[in-house]
């Protein structure tokens, strides 16, 4: 019942949140004194010709009418047409979404798999050499710029050691489209060559994205474990003679992870934002690269579409996190 209440509550807030997001991005993107139509019309177009084309796309109308039309279209599933590709925005976004999701999900899973145990180790061995080393890694992960790290990885692992591909998502054009996730698609058709290629192409971008995420997860896990260690229930369990490993990995970790899970929800948003840089450096054909190009071209519909889809994903992931938190901690106020 609590979960249902939570779902309904969040869904009620979903639409105003997305509306607010759209309004904000629409306003910002349209008040920038850029003119995508001038670029589209070519360097040789006269001002009259540009004005004609602007009218053709409806950019001559007042902003509130443009916004109303956009929102109405969105409710009908029409995100508009890209000025540059002349294709529906939904088509362009869906073509790129799997690449970004694959990158983000693998990064978040890797960062959690590594970050949580290391966080526990750091807490259990507080102030030991291991803790200091892990703290150094954590601080580095939070401080190093993704852009710099990505180039460093490229120079060392791809250029110097020749261990990984330098860039791209796969050699060639990838397996036949089923879901758009190359790892999954190649597995589904047992195309091991494509799987290996997709896997090896993921290594550097995932490492770049996962490193700061892992550092955050490690920090929160460490803090959570340290907090739980000092609880009375741990003292009680110890007095009951429960083995230490069970106390740490079952009881302490469960409580310690509540904060970490919340962080993972927030990290998802950070990773989506971080993917813009990582996709640019690694030539990863995802949403981040699309967003950069759209912003540079002032392709309004594309910018709005990107915002809508990433905003919706972020809200959905946070909803999922809230539900998980509720499941993990029955005391939590929903």
């Amino acid at each position: 019942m609590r979960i249902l209440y939570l779902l309904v509550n969040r869904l009620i807030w979903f639409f105003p949140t997305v509306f607010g997001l759209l309004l904000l991005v629409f306003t910002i993107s349209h008040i920038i004194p850029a003119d995508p139509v001038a670029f589209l019309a070519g360097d040789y177009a006269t001002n009259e010709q540009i004005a004609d084309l602007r009218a053709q796309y409806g950019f001559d109308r007042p902003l509130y009418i443009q916004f109303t039309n956009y929102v109405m279209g969105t409710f009908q599933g029409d995100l508009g047409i890209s000025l540059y590709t002349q294709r529906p925005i939904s088509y362009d976004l869906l073509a790129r979404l799997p690449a970004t999701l694959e990158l983000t999900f693998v990064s978040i899973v890797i960062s959690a798999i590594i970050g949580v145990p290391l966080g526990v180790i750091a807490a259990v061995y507080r102030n030991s050499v291991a803790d200091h080393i892990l703290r150094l890694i954590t601080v580095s992960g939070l401080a190093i710029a993704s852009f710099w790290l990505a180039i460093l990885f490229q120079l060392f692992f791809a250029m110097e050691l020749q261990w990984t591909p330098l860039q791209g998502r796969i050699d060639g054009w990838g397996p036949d489209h089923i879901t758009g996730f190359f790892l999954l698609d190649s597995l589904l058709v047992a195309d091991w060559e494509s799987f290996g290629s997709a896997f090896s192409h993921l290594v550097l971008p995932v490492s770049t994205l996962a490193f700061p995420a892992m550092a955050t997860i490690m920090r929160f896990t460490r803090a959570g474990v340290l907090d739980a260690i000092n609880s009375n229930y741990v003292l009680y369990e110890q007095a009951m003679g429960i083995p230490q490993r069970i106390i740490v990995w079952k009881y302490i970790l469960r409580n310690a992870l509540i904060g970490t899970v919340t962080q993972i929800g927030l990290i998802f948003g950070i990773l989506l934002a971080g993917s813009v840089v990582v996709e640019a450096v690694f030539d990863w054909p995802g949403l981040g690269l699309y967003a950069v190009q759209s912003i540079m071209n002032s392709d309004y519909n594309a910018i709005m579409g990107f915002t809508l889809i990433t905003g919706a994903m972020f809200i959905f992931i946070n909803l999922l996190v809230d539900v998980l938190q509720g499941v993990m901690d029955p005391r939590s106020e929903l």
Partner: protein
Amino acid sequence: MESLIKTTTKERKKIMFKFNIIKSLTLGMALILGGALIAPTGLEAKNKFVFANSSPYDTMDPHALYDVGRVAYRINLYDGLLRWLDNPPKLSPWLADSYDISEDGTSYTFHLNKGATFHDGSPVEASDVVYSIERILALKKGAFSLYTGSVEPGSTKALDTHTVQFNLVQPSSIFLATVPAIHILNSTLVKSHEVDGDLGAKWLSQNDAGSGSFELDRYDPAIGFSAKRFEDHFMGWGDKYLDEIEFRTVIEINSRVLGLMNGDFHGTDGYLPQDQVKRLVASENVDVQVEESMRIFYVILNHNREIMQDINFRKALSHAFDYDSFITDILGGSVARNPAPMPNNIWGNPLDEKGYSYDMDKAREYLAKVKKPIPEFVLGALAGYGQTGQAAALFQNSLTKLGLKTRIVEEPWSVASKKMRDKEQMYDSLFIWRSTYYADPNNWIGEMYACDQVGARNNSWYCNPEVDKLLMDARIEPDQAKRSVNYKKAAKMVMDDAAGLFVYNTVWFGPYNKNVKGVRFSPIGNAQEMRWVYFEK
């Protein structure tokens, strides 16, 4: 809790055992990755050329965009009636074997090659040419504005299957130079995909309806496109050619450079920053080909500003820019000084004119003659194009020494291009390049300083009736020798007027894999036409 933190060795081992499982898994993954080392791509064995391009291939419609960055799909998948080749560029027969011009200069008749076919095997006919020009005019995008005022809708006629006639509104000596921008479509194919009168725009945005040397094989707007050699191309093939070409979007300069050094790519754009060119020159995998291009770098001065009406102020500005330091020190001598409003290597350039040099004493002299108060001077630069920012900073340094209050405004092209069309919003000065769309002096001085281009291609709002008459006469005069005289005179007047600051002629540093041969550079197309390229075995 100290007891827990200070666990016994045995307990620690247990905890570590669990951790070791995770660690082993992680290491296992690393080993798998280790096993997935890059295998040699074998691209050259497949005779496949990969080019890393800085601009995204948003569309495959050759009439949707007319820019330099995305020229590859237009010139490799499509043919025009004529084509610019080599450097200096020569207008060469292509789909048209020959052409006639009527005595009054308004009628251009092209005779098509009878062996030319589209990729689907259907013949290229005059009706396809008519459809293509009408589509360009109707779409009002891309190259359409090249034909504004010269080609009216409905005026182009197919005289017979292989003869097409363009009937211009008025004589134009530059029309022929713009003909290569008319990319010929398979009209039957495109018409069959028209939806709601869209002229096939949606379908053509990701499909191919051309007759070019290569036919589209794969296209992904997120990645780029690949195309296979069109064996039946009307020009035939020698014994050296590529079987497949692939143009990928790689936005990050460093990634393009590393990819080229690593052998992932065989070529990339030839206007990289000098530090990157030096890296490539030092690489054992890469050859850097050098050609003087026709792209010029100059400063647009906004003549709408009251202070800019004073020629002394403009001359002071012209002497205040340190041309030599910029070219020699900042750009490492990688460009050629060009003091004129057109490239060094085009006919009509007044090569004997020296232009302005950096001389702060002269700048002070001229500035002393300026009577009106000088307001804050805004130096515009293009975000993402570091060289414009560097030039603006250098200029700002000199202007500050002269006692002027200045401010640098760096904005992306989409913003700057809008401001350039608005006399109020236009910066006081803007560092910018003028690219080569067609090799005729009109592409530069004829548009940069003609009165009829004010607010469009003339972003300085400079309008001198004497200069304008020379430029207008040159636009309709068919004799190139007479036109050349006009352009030389006009250029000298523009320079004497200090209408802008003319800095350099770009040099193209085309980086290619060492095994790549046969690259033919032309300032129009920037060597991205692949039909002559091959791998040395």
